[in-house]
Each structure stands twice: as C-alpha cells, then as structure tokens.
C-alpha cells in the first residue's frame, strides 16, 4: 500500500515591536541577561498587563498579508502550565477568538503553483529563556533563566493540513517567511529564534479521505531541519504502518545530530492548559476602517511583485522569483533598473556577482557598498562596450571593497576597452601581414584559424580590444 503524508505546521514568529507585549520593557536581542525586565514581565505579585497597540497592529498586518479574515471582536485567554521560564505560570494567549482566521499562502513547488490554508493567526507572549549549565536539561547541575525574552510579542500561525511533502513544507515556510519579512512585522531569523516551527504529520493510504493518527514534531531549528525531520518521520511512520502496527499519537523531538525523531511525551501525558478568558485585559474591538488602514499600510507582497517584475521587466519567472524573495533585493533591483536600460542585465548582476560578493562578505543588500546607482553606471559601461563583461567583474569586486565609482576603477586599472575600428584595424592589418600562411589557410576555408588571429590581436592590444570588433575586422580583412 502507498501512503500519502498529511502535514500541517505551527509557526511562532516574534514581532519587531520596540517594547514587549504587556509592558514597556525593550525587546532588543542580545542584551545583558535579565536587564530588560520589570514587575510585569517577571510576573511579580500584583503586576498587571497592558496591551501593546503596535503588537496588535503587527499581528493583524501579518494576518492580512496571509489572506486572513480579521475578527473585529477578540479577546485574550490564559494558557496555564508550570515551567521555570514562564514567570506567571500562565501564558497570555488567544484561545477561541484569535485575531485572524481563514487565510492562505500561495507558493511555488517544482515550478508550479501551490497553496496552503492558514487556519488562524493569534497573538501571545514569549516565555523567558532557560540556559542550562550542561548540554541539555538532563545532566545539568543548574539552569539559569533570562527573562529578557519574557513578554516579547509572538504570533502563532497554524496551517491547515494541506502540505503533502517535506519539500512542500519547506517551500511554504520560505514563502511565509518572505511574506512576513515584506510586511516588516518580523525579521524571521530562525537562528535567533524569532521564527520557530513545529509540524504535525500523519499518513493515510492514497485515496483515503480520513486522516491518520498525527504525530507532533518539535525542536527543528532550520528549514532544512524541518524538511529532514519530516522526511524521517514519514519514513518512520511508513515503516510502522507497513509493519502492521498503528502510529501512536505523541509528541516527538527532532535530534539534528542523529537525524532521527525521538518520543517526548504521549497523548496521555499532554497538558490540560485550562484556558479561560484573561480577566486582567479587556476584550479587543477593532473597527473595520482601522483594519482597512492597516491593509493600506501593507507593501506589495512577494508574489504580486514577482508577477509585476515578469510583466514590466520581461524577466523569467525564475529571475523574478529570485529577486523578490527578499523585499530588500527587490527594492535594490527596482532602483537599479530605473537607471539602466536593460533590466535583464541588472537582474543577472544582482542575482549573480553581487549576490556572491554580499554572501561572501556576509553583508546585507541594504548596506551593500555598491549602491543601485553605482551598479547601474557599471552596467552602462558594459552596454556601451567601454569594458568587457569579464573586466566588469573585476571592477565590481574592486568597487565592493573600495566603494569607488565604476568610472574611477576602470580608469585606474586601464580597463577601458578599445572599440575604435581604426586603432584595431591597423593592428589587425599588421598581424595578417605578418602571418601570410595562416591567412591563406583561412581563405581556403579553415575557419578555426580565426581564433589564432584573435589571440594575436588581443595579445598585441593587451586584452583591451573589443572582441566583437576584432572578430568583425579580422573576417573582413582576411577575406580581402
């Protein structure tokens, strides 16, 4: 029997507000432990939460960007459980009235369009961070807790069980991340923990409607890990089912080093969170015009921008997709394309050489030493034939390091290409005259000899001759 995987994801994303969800403490990453807390986010007796309006705006903007409907009347609930890094022993979250419901994310899979539904997006607070003295909580003699993270606003995004492969899950996550980054509500940095993903995965026989027993997989720290963990889990469950056993409902943790999932807790051990409405906060009411105001603040989203790039700049889908995967790259492209007549060339250089240089230097495109203006100038020189493409790569590298203009670098390196027919013509003439036998061979039909002549001319002109002009003049003069 063949089985079909059914995958749903739960993604937690930290919002980029300046202050925490229920107090005025700062949210910046990497501060001295426990330097960004107060009675509220430490859960001291008597402290009360006050909702951060900006966090609500960001959560709703995220929901709108994911195509959700917004509940105009919503509320917060308490999710009760004990954990050392959860200072109140409850998390203020949203249970049955999340801000956003019924959305969808379109993404590309194997070059074709695909889509996954978004069940809900809700707002909640982060817990603190446990730092264990050993490698893990087991075997540690003590643990420290940093409450700087406690109370940072978080959205939880829950998808429909619409994904059918680990690759689809990864492609979806990439599109989700891009979309959220476009809205500016989160930086979605998985390595800093500002984006985290859990997955629910089950198998069912192909053609069967009801879902199989699902397993929750946690502790995946990269998109690659999500893909690998899901592939492993599908493999594991397939083994269980084909062996005649049943999959047990449980939570499993991905072990990155060993490349396996291990059981964390069974269904019986699962928490009863005893949700109830948070009595310290008033229900949240959102007026339709306020929601529309937020919608108006959303930027053009990646998929729409990709389509526009294909249409307006005659780019291929792949080119446009690559450019629009980050809002900053797409912005860079549009700025450069506005100054240079060939969008194709701009795209090639951004996706190619510039991307390589930025990547090697670990520099974000927003602070690229080569600005869109500088790049467009460089490409102008290439288009005009002033320098060759090969030379332009050297120039770009120099510009990247020295931040000098293309003009300056070309001048200094003497890379200016000679395209002048007279100057090249006299060299061509002299070379032909110096090699009468090879000239005769060409005239007799040996085309390959042309390469020899090109090499001779280029050597004579120290590589600065425009190869196209050299070619043309050689053919012309050899035939005569």
């Amino acid at each position, binding site marked *: 029997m063949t089985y079909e995987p059914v995958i749903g994801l739960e993604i937690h994303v930290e919002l980029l507000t300046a202050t925490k969800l229920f107090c005025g403490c700062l949210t910046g990453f990497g501060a001295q432990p426990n330097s960004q807390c107060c009675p509220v986010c*430490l859960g*001291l007796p*008597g402290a009360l939460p006050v909702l951060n309006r900006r966090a609500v705006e960001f959560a709703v903007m995220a929901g709108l960007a994911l195509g959700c409907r917004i509940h105009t009347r919503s509320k917060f609930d308490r999710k*009760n459980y004990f954990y050392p890094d959860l200072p109140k*022993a409850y998390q203020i979250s949203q249970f049955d009235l999340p801000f956003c419901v019924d959305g969808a994310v379109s993404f590309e899979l194997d070059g074709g369009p695909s889509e996954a539904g978004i069940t809900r997006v809700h707002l909640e607070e982060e817990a603190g961070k446990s730092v264990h003295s050993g490698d893990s909580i087991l075997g540690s003699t003590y643990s420290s807790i940093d409450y700087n993270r406690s109370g940072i606003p978080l959205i939880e995004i829950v998808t429909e069980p619409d994904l059918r492969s680990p690759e689809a899950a990864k492609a979806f996550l990439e599109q989700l991340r891009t979309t959220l980054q476009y809205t500016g509500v989160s930086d979605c940095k998985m390595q800093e923990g500002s984006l985290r993903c859990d997955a629910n995965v089950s198998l069912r026989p192909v053609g069967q409607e009801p879902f199989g027993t699902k397993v929750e997989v946690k502790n995946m720290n990269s998109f690659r890990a999500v893909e690998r963990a899901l592939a492993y889990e599908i493999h594991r469950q397939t083994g269980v089912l084909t062996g005649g056993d049943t999959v047990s409902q449980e939570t499993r943790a991905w072990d990155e080093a060993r490349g396996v999932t291990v059981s964390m807790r069974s269904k019986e051990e699962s928490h*009863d969170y*005893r*949700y109830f409405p948070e009595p*310290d*906060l008033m229900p949240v009411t959102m007026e339709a015009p306020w929601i529309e105001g937020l919608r108006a603040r959303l930027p053009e989203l990646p998929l729409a921008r990709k389509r526009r790039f294909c249409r307006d700049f005659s780019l291929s889908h792949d080119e446009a997709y690559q450019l629009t995967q980050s809002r900053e790259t797409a912005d860079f492209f549009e700025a450069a394309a506005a100054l240079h007549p060939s969008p194709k060339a701009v795209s090639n250089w951004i996706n190619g050489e510039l991307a390589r240089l930025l990547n090697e230097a670990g520099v974000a495109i927003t602070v690229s030493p080569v600005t869109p203006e500088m790049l467009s100038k460089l490409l102008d020189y290439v288009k005009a034939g002033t320098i060759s493409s090969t030379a332009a790569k050297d120039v770009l590298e120099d510009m990247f390091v020295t931040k000098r203009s293309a003009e300056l670098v070309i001048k200094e390196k003497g890379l200016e290409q000679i395209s002048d027919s007279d100057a090249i013509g006299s060299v061509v003439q002299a070379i032909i005259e110096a090699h009468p036998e090879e000239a005769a061979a060409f005239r007799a039909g040996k085309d390959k000899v042309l390469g020899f002549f090109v090499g001779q001319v280029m050597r004579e002109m120290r590589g600065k001759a425009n190869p196209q002009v050299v070619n043309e003049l050689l053919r012309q003069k050899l035939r005569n």
Partner: protein
Amino acid sequence: MNLQTTSAVELQRLLNDGSLSSRELVDRCAERISDQEPSIGAFLTLSLDTAKAEAAASDERRRRGALLSPWDGIPVAVKDNICTRGLRTTCGSRMLERFVPPYDAAVVERLRTAGLPVLGKTNLDEFAMGSSTENSALQRTCNPRDTQRVPGGSSGGSAAAVAAGESPWALGSDTGGSIRQPAAFCGVVGIKPTYGTVSRYGLVAYASSLDQIGTFGRRVRDAASLLQLIAGHDARDSTSLPAETLQLGSDDPSVRGLRVGLPLEYLEHGLNAEIHQAVMDAVRRLEEAGAVVQELRLPLTDYAVETYYLIATAEASSNLARYDGVRYGYRAEADDSRGMFEMSRTEGFGDEVKRRIMLGTYALSAGYYDAYYKKAQQIRTMMRREYESAFEQVDVLLTPTSPTTAFAFGDKSTPLDMYLQDIFTVTSNLVGIPAVSLPCGEDSHKLPIGLQIMGPHFSEARLVETAEWLERQRNGGDSHDL
C-alpha cells in the same frame, strides 16, 4: 478629645487649625498601637519610623504652605496584599513571608503623593481567602469589640486597626465581602467601590475580575474621603475605568424621595432576628424621612455563593500559580524543578489556599469547564441583568452585611460554614457594583451589626449620602464629633 475615636475629618480640622501636628498624631497612633497590638494583632509589619519621618515632613510642608493634599499628614494602614516598595508584603502567607516588593502599588503611590504616612501592613486571611482572618499563616487578629471573637475577613487587620483606634483609616481589598464583612464585625464603615474605580496595579491578585481595593473609616465621610483619594484611572490597570472624579459626601445628606429596595432573599432563610430587626429599624427611619421603600425579589441571589466560589477559585488557581519558588517567595529544596515547585507550594500555602486552588483547577479542567466555570459566568451575566433591572425600580438596595455578628475563633469549623458568611456580599462583586457597610446597631452581646447599602455602577455618591444620613440618625446629629 479622644484622638483614638476622632474621625479623620476632625483630625484634618485639628491639623489645619494648628492644635495638632502630624508628628504628634503619628506618635499617638504609635502609642496606641504598642498598647493595643498585644491583644489585637492587627499589624503584620509596622513602619512607624518611616511614618514618623513622613509626618515630620508633612508638618514641614504645612509650615511652608505646600501641602500635597487636604489629607496630608493623616496616617493610614494598608492591607498586606497591597505592594509597598521596600516594605515586606506577605499576603498573610508563608509563601511571601519575606517578600519585599521592588515597587509600590498604584494606591500606595497615591497615598504617598497625597502625603499620608503609612503606619504598617495589616493582617488578612492568606491571599485574602477567608472571612475571619483565621487563615492568616502568620498571626491571629482579634476583634477589638471582643477579643474572643474574629474580626471578620479577609481584611480583618485593617478593620481591627481602625476599630481599635490604631489608625484613623485603612485600605482593604474586597473580592466577595472582604471589606464589608470585617467592617460590620468590628463596627466601622467599609466601602467597596464600583469595579474599576481604584487601580488594582500592585494589589496581589486573588480573583482578578472580582478584586477591588476599598477603604475603612470610623465614619462614612472618612472612608469616602480616603476612597476619593485613591480612586481614578490608572493606565497600568486595563480594567481601570476612565477618569471620573468621585465627589463623595454632602453637607446636608437627604433621603427624601430615595427609592429603597429590600430584596427578600437577603432577609429570609432564618436570618438572625436581631440582625433582621436592626435592618428593619433603618428601613423605618428611612421611610419616616420620606424614602420610598419597596420589597423586591432577586431570585438569582440564591446562586450567588456557588457562582462566586466557582469564578473566584478558577481565577485564583491561575493567579496563584506563579508562586513556584523560582523567582521569589518560599522555596523548598528538591531534586528537580518539578519537585521544587510541588514542595514549595505544598509547604508554602495553607489549607484554605490549597483547597481553593484545587477547586479552581477542577472547575477549569477539560470536560468540566462548560459545566462549572462557563455556567458560572453565564449566571454572572444573568445576575448583572437582574440587578440592572432592579435598579430601574430602586436607587439603592438595603440588606444586612453579614448573616451573623462576629463569631468566636474556631466557630466556623467547616469551609462551607465559612463560605456562607459571604452570602450577602458576593453579589456586588459578581455584578461589579459599589456597596457600603456601616454600623446599624448591636446585638445582645454588644456586638456590632452591619447594614449594607448597594447601588448601581458609579452610585458611590448616592450610597455615601444615604449612609451618612443613617449615620447621623444613629448618632443624633453631627457625625464629625463623637
């Protein structure tokens, strides 16, 4: 003049005309405290040195003509579930026996910015859970009217401090009657304002949707003035109501034309005859003065105690979950963090607190939520409507504050007996309306009887005027002078 029975209003006059200094006043309170505390035990923590320094500073301000408020220099006692910066705040619990808050509650800020010296922190049932202050893990407080009897609770320490003349007035908190019942037992005035009138920021939560800070005074005007001083919007409490200045008290209180409702549910079920009589005496006086009294029925009152204990314990089970020994408070040693949680809570909490946490946990559990917590919330909504429609017919409701007068220590031997103490007081918390308790006579044991006046949301001014009128009737004239 007996300083210990003089009203805050009169103390204000004495300070203003220079016949008394704030420092003298605080010294007299300190003397009275050292005299009374061995038999009363109202205070868990005293801050008399600070209070004396604050009083001296107040006198200095008075000399410069730079008073912070009309009540500058009159000292106050604060219930020990209200956070005071640098002064331990125990909630009457082993769990917080050594907890020193790093911040002041909003109401304490208001006391300080108005120039009121804080004498100390008063005893209470552990985490405000109880009706006799017997649940305090730290100390017993006796009723100043009869030290063999309880002062009521949970704000028993504040009520006793005011009744014993240790403090002119005091702050308490009222979740289901915790101000009004001890006020009745000790023979003083207690006001629980409309929910949201006073900021809860810094009040250690018991049941968030019911908790409200209020005041004790020896006179209606005192309790009303202190309430006026601490009331007002606070951005740090999201349930705090928009600012609306409370104007309480009138020089010529009147009840002419006042529509008074007598809810029969509060007078049946074998109510103590002496209490019944005292309430009816008040009714008669009101009628004679031109009030229109009508009997009415509020049938949902019969569900009030059950509804209250479901909601209060559910919220408490969550509010008290933070006491896990990790960051502050009592910590037991154990092999792992879970064991530490369990042992810290087992050893740090008293029986009544554990009982309510378990009840509340149960009421919120999967499979029981709809039958208990949700149903209780639905009844609460219905009660709100029932009281709203009652207040279309009447301006105030008159009831006994408590079904009994002060009882002896250990008298309420089962939790249920104790819970039934709250039968007349929990409704105003569930509905969120204001209520005043004032003395309305004594029983045959010379124990004070409390009369409760409830009104619709924001009717504090009407309640205070009615209470003040009744107070003058009983005292035969000017209420400022005993």
